């Protein structure tokens, strides 16, 4: 067997095993994404009830809470962005990072200090590689987040938001997450997390619908005190769920195209391999025929 033929065979084998791996990853992502979508759907009743309650309080009392009030001067602005823990997700993480960086550049141009919070190893790596300061980071749950993760992240953000600016607090917090529009499109988005805009919730009650006259226990202010942190956590929970679903959808797509590429490559390699083998056989036959005729000729000469 010629060296060229052996090499082609080896390459085809290695591409075949790569294809098996990417195919398996594609299938895993496809099954996980269904779970992620279920999780996102299961979280809906909670969010809906919470929104209803917040708007109920907001319509009854003047919303005046540290979490809803903009601080006088915006100097330190925080960005929290959601990326994946591992690669093989196509452009998922880099898209989120790009959006984050664009936002950061804009804030820098406005003369603000930017504080970064990273969720997911890719984001942490991005910041540490560029020697950028990471205020806080979380990782290890990018494809299967749990509510307690959201709880932890949100509580840290709330605590930093409530701290005075001079003591290292932040004046505004923006979240950069990837929204799952469909299996085909996931778009990175920037949303303001804090201070909260409760106006949003009020509109959801619907036109013409009279909001019920709730009795509050103990009183509207304390109910609000209890509700708003829950509301922030549920926002973060929503971001985590969306990010997880987007990551998996992106992974499935990336792995599908990797599998398709591998298939194309295998086809090409097989063709080249057959050609090499065929030419080797032709050459051998030529040699034999040549040898035989040479023999015949020498016998005839005798």
């Amino acid at each position, binding site marked *: 067997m010629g060296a060229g033929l052996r090499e082609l065979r080896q390459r085809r084998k290695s591409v075949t095993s790569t294809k098996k791996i990417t195919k398996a990853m594609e299938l895993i992502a496809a099954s996980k994404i269904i779970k992620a979508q279920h*999780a996102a759907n*299961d979280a809906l*009743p909670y969010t809906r009830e919470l929104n209803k309650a917040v708007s109920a309080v907001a319509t009854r009392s003047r919303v005046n809470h540290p979490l809803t009030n903009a601080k006088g001067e915006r100097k330190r602005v925080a960005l929290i962005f959601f990326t994946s823990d591992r690669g093989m997700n196509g452009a998922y993480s880099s898209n989120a990072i790009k959006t984050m960086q664009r936002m950061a550049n804009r804030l820098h141009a406005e003369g603000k200090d930017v504080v970064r919070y990273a969720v997911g190893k890719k984001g942490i790596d991005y910041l540490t590689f560029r020697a950028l300061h990471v205020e806080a980071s979380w990782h290890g749950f990018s494809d299967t987040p749990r509510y307690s993760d959201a709880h932890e992240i949100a509580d840290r953000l709330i605590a930093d938001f409530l701290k005075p600016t001079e003591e290292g607090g932040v004046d505004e917090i923006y979240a950069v997450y990837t929204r799952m529009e469909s299996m085909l499109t996931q778009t990175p988005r920037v949303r303001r997390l804090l201070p909260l805009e409760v106006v949003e919730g009020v509109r959801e009650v619907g036109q013409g619908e009279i909001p019920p006259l709730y*009795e509050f226990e*103990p009183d509207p202010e304390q109910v609000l005190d209890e509700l708003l942190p829950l509301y922030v956590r549920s926002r973060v929970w929503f971001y985590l769920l969306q990010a997880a679903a987007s990551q998996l959808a992106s992974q499935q797509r990336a792995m599908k195209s990797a599998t398709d590429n591998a298939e194309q490559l295998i086809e090409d390699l097989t063709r080249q391999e057959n050609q090499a083998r065929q030419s080797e056989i032709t050459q051998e036959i030529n040699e034999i025929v040549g040898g035989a005729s040479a023999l015949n000729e020498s016998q005839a000469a005798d």
Partner: protein
Amino acid sequence: MADDSLWVEVVSADGRVWEGEALSVVARTTEGDIGILSRHEPILGVLVPCAAEVLTTGGERKIVAVDGGFLSVNDNKVSILSQYATLAETISLHEAELEMASAAKALEAGNVDEETKRHYNRAAAQFKAAQKASSGLR
């Protein structure tokens, strides 16, 4: 829906824990225990960690471990919203007891930050709920 019943929904952050028709709901707010019957006035109350009780129209007693959150009543519908609400029947009494003991130990060790306190409250509520549920069965 019958005249003397109301619709109850227990929701945790991970999804709907239980929903169905019930005769009454008892839960503990910051002001004390509150019992809700059909056609209660609209109310929005802050819950403290407790074991909430729902008496279903089928005569069953559903117990839910609640770690705070709130309760809202409107239009004969009761929603109990709690981040980690769990049905008592899904909690193992033994595990809940261990959990509570370890949380209590952490508290005693001088670890009195918000997180450990919350953990203890949650564990205690789950233990209480599991206890209530198992005594109800006997």
